[in-house]
């Protein structure tokens, strides 16, 4: 057991409870309507906060990141499946990076 492994275990010990404990406190309860509504909107809020503005640093260049994000947006709006969105975004970011580098 090295120092880093010990550190990893400590990191796990502070990471795991925030993943696990709330679930057990909340699972079987009937909650007030406001709390239910709050929990209902959390996934949308989290996705928004995760996407923006960090998406602009996704590929190391704001230009190719924006190209990739735009492709994902357009493919998503046209109803494509997730794998198509992913590959389209990667390809667009790649092409934009190549063009930008010229």
């Amino acid at each position: 057991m090295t120092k880093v492994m010990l550190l990893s275990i400590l990191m796990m010990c502070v990471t795991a409870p925030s993943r696990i404990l709330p679930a057990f406190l909340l699972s079987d309860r009937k909650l007030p309507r406001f709390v239910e509504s709050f929990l209902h909107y959390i996934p949308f809020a989290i996705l928004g906060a995760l996407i923006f503005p960090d998406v602009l640093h996704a590929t190391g260049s704001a230009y190719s990141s924006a190209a990739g994000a735009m492709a994902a947006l357009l493919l998503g709006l046209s109803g494509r499946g997730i794998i198509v969105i992913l590959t389209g975004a990667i390809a667009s970011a790649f092409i934009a990076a190549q063009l930008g580098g010229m």
Partner: protein
Amino acid sequence: MDRDFEQDNDSDTASGFTDGLKAGVPIAIGYIPSAVACGILCRTAGLTAAESVFMSFIVFAGASQFVALNLLLIGAGPLEIVLATALLNMRHIMMSSVLARRLKPQISAIKRVLIYFEMTDESFSVAAMRKEPLLSSEFMFGLNIQGHFTWTFGTLAGYLGTSFLPKSVQDSMGIAIYALFIGLLIPSVQKNRPALITTSIAMGLSAFIKWTPIFSSMNRGLAMMAAAGASALLAAALFPLGEEQ
């Protein structure tokens, strides 16, 4: 086309292990570049291959590992590292609170612990956006294992320098996680105006925190939790779930 993952027999519950594995494919693709980068950083920070794999396997939290490795590099103490990790991962409190109400009630406590232990921003997002109201343990394990496996082995690949992809491709793949998030979000917000408003407000607050000088040094996990929490609270006040739900 590839959106129809759910099985025909039990449309209320996202069921099988294979469904989970399939739903996890985009997550696996998205993890490759960060996992490889994590392995490279582990090597730079002077970890052994075993330590790197061990850390990725048991911590399994990308952002925390990057922060921890950078702190190690600048010679920070363990207390500081553990504290930064704890703050960064407080956002999972909101996620597991949501998932708690989506897992099938029959799932045993031990299985639940394992499911939540492996939960990440990405697996949470995929699970939360499923159309089925309830999720089975098999589905969740399939979903989580994809990411956990890719993360662990990607770290090793990066460490060993066999990143097997040219740098330019790897950089471009950095967009994958965000493309996944965008792809998950669009179908849900297209037909749901309150959800669209919630997302937009969270984006605005998140950008505000990041771009305002006094807040910009704020721990990113806390910033995200503040932005998402505030916008979900606002949405709950403005658009409470009612009879129509």
